[in-house]
């Protein structure tokens, strides 16, 4: 009994770590490759989650929805919606210093949260959307292990996509922009355009993560998309894992989500009157963890290893 309990906890733990890994991979595209500072992850996460939820729920008179479309269509909608938001933000900020992107992105994330919270007809406001269908309903795989499998498939798929992008000439331009913008511009690259592409692709991946989250959690409310849960923890994951390294992003997601979950086990033991204090203590811990990593090991657990140049490999053979 104990063992099955632990096993089912582990399965749900890994499922959520997988969802966060998708978000961290999306952020890696923006920050790790290109050096774009997006701290509006929660916004893209929320847009993806709500789009997928509205497209797939059986419907309710209280809010927009009732399309009852299949899981994959919902995810597709999530990706499209977050792509659109990404294009808008990207077009505004691609020419500017990354500090402006930071400010604009946190702004859009707060606006999206405000909108979801206040527009009841769309999102049922603070009451949230419940009863979002599970991905494999009606098949024998409609079990927690089955969901984990689906998430793993998506994480692996996104991983190969971004890894391919990283090694490609396109990814090389992104890294060049990150390392030395004037030199890249002098080499004739359209910096704003490359930035926009990377930003939109990263945003689309975050939207996908949001869609996955909606289907595995089954319930959405604006509270889930506060900057802390949506944005900050993904940043800590990427920095801890090693920004620029896709494997690092996945490892960081598992490790940091592990720390976050273990601290929850401890704070759950506190008496109820200290519950809010316990929650604050956990945030404090994650915040301090980030600062310690930044000071002591800024390259993260798995530092970035740029692929060797193909020409040089040939010569050495």
């Amino acid at each position: 009994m104990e063992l099955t309990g632990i096993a089912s906890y582990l399965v749900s733990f890994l499922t959520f770590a997988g969802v966060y890994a998708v978000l961290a991979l999306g952020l890696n595209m923006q920050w790790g490759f290109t050096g774009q500072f997006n701290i509006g992850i929660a916004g893209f996460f929320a847009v993806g989650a709500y789009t997928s939820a509205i497209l797939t729920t059986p419907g309710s008179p209280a809010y927009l929805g009732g399309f009852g479309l299949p899981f994959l269509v919902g995810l597709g909608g999530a990706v499209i919606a977050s792509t659109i938001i990404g294009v808008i933000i990207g077009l505004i900020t691609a020419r500017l210093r990354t500090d402006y992107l930071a400010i604009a992105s946190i702004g859009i994330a707060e606006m999206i949260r405000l909108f979801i919270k206040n527009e009841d007809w769309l999102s049922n406001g603070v009451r949230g959307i419940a009863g979002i269908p599970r991905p494999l309903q009606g098949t024998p795989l409609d079990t927690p292990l089955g969901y984990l499998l689906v998430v793993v498939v998506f994480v692996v798929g996104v991983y190969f996509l971004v890894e391919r992008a990283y090694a490609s000439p396109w990814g090389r331009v992104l890294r060049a922009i990150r390392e030395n913008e004037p030199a890249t511009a002098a080499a004739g690259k359209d910096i704003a355009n490359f930035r926009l592409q990377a930003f939109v692709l990263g945003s689309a991946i975050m939207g996908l993560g949001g869609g996955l989250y909606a289907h595995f959690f089954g319930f959405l409310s604006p509270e889930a998309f506060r900057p802390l849960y949506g944005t900050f923890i993904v940043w800590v994951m990427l920095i801890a894992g090693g920004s620029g390294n896709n494997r690092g992003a996945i490892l960081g997601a598992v490790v940091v989500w592990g720390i976050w979950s273990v601290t929850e086990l401890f704070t759950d033991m506190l008496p109820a009157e200290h519950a809010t204090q316990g929650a604050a203590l956990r945030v404090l811990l994650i915040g301090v963890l980030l600062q310690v990593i930044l000071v002591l090991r800024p390259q993260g657990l798995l530092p970035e290893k740029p692929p060797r140049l193909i020409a040089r490999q040939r010569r050495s053979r």
Partner: protein
Amino acid sequence: MTDILQLLVYGLVLGSVLTMGAIGVSMIFGILRFAHFAHGDFMTLGAYLGLTFISAFGLSAWWALPAAMVGMAVVAVFIDQVLYRRIRRTQPVILLIASFGMALILRSLVQLIWGSDNQSYATGIQFPWRLDWLGGIRLKPDHLWIVLISLGLVMAVHLFLTRTRLGKAMRAMSDNMDLALVSGIPAERVIMVTWVIGGALAAAAGVFLGIDTRLHPVMGWSALLPVFAATILGGIGRPYGAIAGGMIIGVSMEMSTLIIPAAYKPAVAFAIMVGMLILRPQGIFKGTV
């Protein structure tokens, strides 16, 4: 008409709060070249420091203000020495991440120490003056003091920047970092003074916000977006622009309640900021892009 005048008064009060925050953000950006995301939580911590002085020594909110400002200046310098100084040599964008983490650290500290419930400086309702010669608008003494003290603090910052050696050094560093450094300006001292001023003004903003409304652990975080909007509007790195930006954003946010629901007040600040980023990213006063 009376409605508009009344909202203008509220707008000037909010504008004063935002100005206090935006001057700090602007100066920190000018000297250290990063957007300080913990500034909203500096405001929160400043407000709660004020609360502690009020309850511990029985001071009134106005006397707690200088105490909170001094306290927050010390905290700001401490945070800089312990954390930011160590990562200053890397890219400025790393400081951006660190300040974002610092924002959450400070907020959770506030929750741990003071709890997450709403609190206020003084109980009871303050009776406003009715100004019949101005169409009968109502003016609370608190509001008048907030605007006047802000004005005084702005004057003090202005005198510091234009009349003292350190203030001139600060402007020089903000204008041209390399030139300032080769001419022997004591960079570490200037940075420390920047944090003293930024922290003290953030505390003032927090205490004003606490006097005007109430204290809550996310009060500063919610004000951060309008503060940034004010900073960008005035031109990043331009303290004088921050004043204009703060007032414009504050008045527009309050005026907007005439046409759209009050819940969307922050959206007005955001919309102005986005419009500015598209049309004139360097701001009214031509800041650093």
